[in-house]
């Protein structure tokens, strides 16, 4: 029987395994060194914050794997031997495969800062990072201050985690405003204010120079590049993005760039070896997407796709329109289609923006100023319906149509205040148009599903 070996038990590897099992009786082994069972990495923060226990981050009960005849092997893969179709483990063990799926995800970036490997310095990615944080920063007497380096999604999550235990946090952000490489200024500035409201010491335009330690090699402070200021701290979180976790592949014949090179069918340069998820690098970018996407749902989609191919129905990876979501402290964020920051947007892209006068809610709609085509929407504090926007993007709706039917796309809980009339009124005023917002229609909402 064909033996499928999957390296990595994250969302990509596990989704692939589940769908291969749905479609076949092949032998499946999932290899992981991180944890015994699949858990949701995105939920690790909630374990530290006490919202969940670790067991709650596991989407499947422990009996699930045996019942579905999916073998789990604990071990750290040292090398892939493509000639003999086997992988070897750090402890000397071997495992042969017929088909191999590499789904090893990412690892936190380190940019060669002095002191980056000291005790007290950590990323926030693996289960082990969480366990380490629990030791290093159980409360604010053991940890008097933490410094977080890198203003992205993981950085702000780590800040929120530490603040939940009242640990003072200094947050070093290289950019002039939080995440403004991705977000338009309106949103980025709202988040700056929100971060400070949570008593996080936000330092913009600030880089790390070095991390200092005591005689035992434990972190005591950091030095800021720009000012030379020294900040006393016990914990340093490095959250300056992630990179594919592929060091163990370098010795093999599999072609790699920053990640494992794959074609649209997620095939690597070696037959019968596939790569999916964060560690895969598309040889050619898909639409405006990046070649490497460290996003939860793309990992899941790649897992689903590769399972189809492996089970005899060769299927290309087509992630469709870009979407994503996040939560910044108390503010929820969703995006559908492409909204680029001022820095990155193209000449033909224009914004329509609306912001609530008091509450932390705002939207930015990106549209083509020549054709009026709707390109994408960022929404903060208002939930929107994925399927509707997906349809609108496919149908290349104009911004005025999107605004006219915006109520259909509202996904906020019942009885929430609606803002569509204000939003449309602002657009009408700015553009001298006369759009009448339509009432929500169940018929339209469900016509596509």
């Amino acid at each position, binding site marked *: 029987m064909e033996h499928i070996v999957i390296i990595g038990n994250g969302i990509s590897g596990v989704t692939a395994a589940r769908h291969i099992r749905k479609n076949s009786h092949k032998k499946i082994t999932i290899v992981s060194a991180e944890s015994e069972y699949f858990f949701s990495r995105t939920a690790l923060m*909630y374990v530290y914050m006490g919202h969940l226990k670790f067991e709650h981050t596991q989407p499947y009960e422990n009996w699930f794997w045996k019942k579905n005849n999916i073998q789990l092997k604990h071990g750290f893969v040292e090398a892939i031997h493509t000639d003999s179709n086997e992988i070897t483990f750090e402890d000397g063990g071997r495992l042969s495969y017929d088909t191999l799926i590499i789904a090893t995800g990412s690892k936190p970036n380190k940019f060669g800062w002095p002191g980056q490997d000291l005790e007290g310095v950590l990323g926030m990615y693996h289960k082990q990072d969480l366990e380490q944080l629990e030791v290093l920063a159980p409360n604010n007497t053991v940890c008097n201050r933490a410094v977080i380096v890198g203003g992205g999604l993981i950085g702000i999550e780590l800040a929120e985690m530490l603040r*939940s235990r009242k640990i003072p946090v200094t947050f070093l952000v290289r950019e002039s405003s939080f995440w403004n490489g991705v977000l338009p200024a309106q949103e980025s500035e709202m988040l700056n204010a929100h971060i400070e409201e949570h008593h996080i010491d936000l330092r913009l335009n600030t880089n790390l120079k070095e991390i200092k330690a005591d005689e035992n090699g434990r972190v005591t402070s950091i030095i800021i590049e720009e000012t030379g200021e020294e900040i006393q701290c016990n914990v340093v979180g490095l959250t300056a993005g992630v990179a594919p976790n592929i060091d163990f592949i370098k010795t093999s014949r599999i072609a790699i760039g920053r990640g494992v090179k794959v074609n649209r069918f997620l095939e690597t340069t070696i037959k019968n070896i596939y790569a999916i998820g964060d560690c895969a690098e598309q040889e050619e970018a898909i639409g405006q997407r990046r070649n490497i996407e460290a996003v939860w749902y793309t990992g899941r989609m790649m897992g*689903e796709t590769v399972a189809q191919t492996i089970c005899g129905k060769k299927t290309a990876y087509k992630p469709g329109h870009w979407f994503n979501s996040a939560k910044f402290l108390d503010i*929820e964020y969703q995006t559908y289609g492409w909204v680029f920051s001022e820095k990155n947007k193209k000449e033909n892209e224009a914004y329509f923006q609306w912001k609530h006068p008091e509450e932390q809610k705002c939207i930015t709609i990106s549209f083509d100023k020549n054709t009026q085509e709707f390109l994408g929407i960022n929404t903060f504090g208002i939930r929107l319906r994925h399927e509707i926007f*997906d349809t609108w993007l496919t149908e290349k709706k104009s911004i005025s149509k999107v605004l006219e039917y915006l109520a259909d796309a509202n996904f906020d809980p019942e009885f929430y205040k609606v803002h569509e009339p204000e939003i449309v009124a602002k657009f009408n005023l700015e553009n001298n148009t006369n759009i009448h917002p339509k009432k929500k229609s169940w018929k339209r909402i469900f016509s596509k599903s």
Partner: protein
Amino acid sequence: MKVIKQSGLIVFLIGLGFFIGTIFLGSFSLKQNELDAFLQEKQYKSTVLKGALEKAVVNVEDLNIFEFSSRVRKAYATSNQYYDVRIAKYNKEKNWKEKGKQYQYKISGKPHSLSFTLAKKAGKGLAADNTALMWFLTFGLGILGALLFIIPDVILLGKPGIKNDGVFLSAATNRGWIGWFAFVFLVSFYVLLYFYPDFIVNWVFLVDPISLSISGNPGSQWFLYGFLYCTVMTVMAVRMYIKYRHNKYQILRTTSVLFFQIVFAFLIPEILVRFEKPWYDFKNAFPLDYDFFFRWNLEELLSSGGFGLFILVWGTVLTVVIVPVMVYFFGKRWYCSWVCGCGGLAETLGDPYRQLSSKTLLSWKFERIIIHAVLVFVLVMTSFALYTFFSGANNVLGIKTQTIQDVYGFLIGSIFAGVIGTGFYPIFGNRVWCRFGCPLAAYLGFIQRFKSRFRITTNGGQCISCGNCSTYCEQGIDVRAYAQKGENIVRSSCVGCGVCSAVCPRGVLKLENGPETGRINPTEILLGNDVNLMELVNNK
């Protein structure tokens, strides 16, 4: 703010201490004329009882409630035994006439209830005489302390939003020692309330003036329970308002259950009594209201004129028409988390414990067996009751209707709904009764599952499988299992509390009522939004 919160906790604990201590207060004895008046009022003819009670409780001093209860129960037992012996004797002698005469002297009723009634007359001391002061030291300090503990959260919790920090790190909400203490307290309370009402007669004294002012009668243990229920719900509703102040659905829902509890379950029934109408809670639908079709209830309603008849029709229409039609349009949430008293307590007092419900497949299996077994039980019992009512026969297929009613009342009505249903909040999560026991919930569940416009919509491919929704589902539904596959959640047990949607960090879940078509959307494969692949897979 923290100081206020902590002093609130101390005040609350002092109030709780007084409340528990009140049980042991006071002395119980009767004067001869009081006893005579009592026996006359009750029309007890047993001279043996009179003698025994005189010896036990008249003009005695310093009896606490336990000693008093024990003596009174002994007196009743002595009297009944005396006549039992005589019945046996005449039976042997085949003296049917004399045997028949003896029955009028026998006294029926549960010993602790008989003792409760007499204790209400016999109580003296702080609770019975200094009621206002004692009310303040118990209820007053409890309410005040709890509010002082809760209200500073407006500031302490920070900006509005989901604040579940430390839920699983606290001994109160993660089955720690505080949780176990709360468990013991709640279970003890229900055991006393249902089975030893005389032991808590001092608590009833505390609410007598309130009862008198509403219904015109002195309170029973059930009035105490009703009053306490409303008080606890009100105080804990303040907590809900603060915790979910960003969420209008939660605020409206909390206001609704509070309204129905105070007005429909508490005030209206008591006021009906004042006007000599039957005590009736207009929102309590059969089969949750399991004795609605019992013979005694039907007889009481039928003898209460047009109003009784109206209740009879209303109660029937409520269950047969209103409940299912409303479930069709809004899901069972309209009842379970907007109207129901049990749901109301679970959503206020029980909210801090919602994360403790088990999400395993095994508990789902148990849930389905148990809740449907209770539904079958209540339906069989009711058909027995109706048969008995119409035919006059006391038993069906050799089983006494009274016996099956007693068994249900004891096992389901008291032990399951009360002792386990609420007592186990701090261990098994708040909706233990609603999830595993309530026959009405089972009935509504069938409609919700098979013929309703209600669903929880999953927002395309946004789910990140974090597990907050499943963890905070009080009904133990593994919400994530659906959400991560892009499937809508259509489950009979969902009470539509809306918390899964509230705790979702990615805006994935929305409770809504929409067209039935497409309500259940099985997606074998979820590729976010790639239409082609979806079609490919679905058409294979």
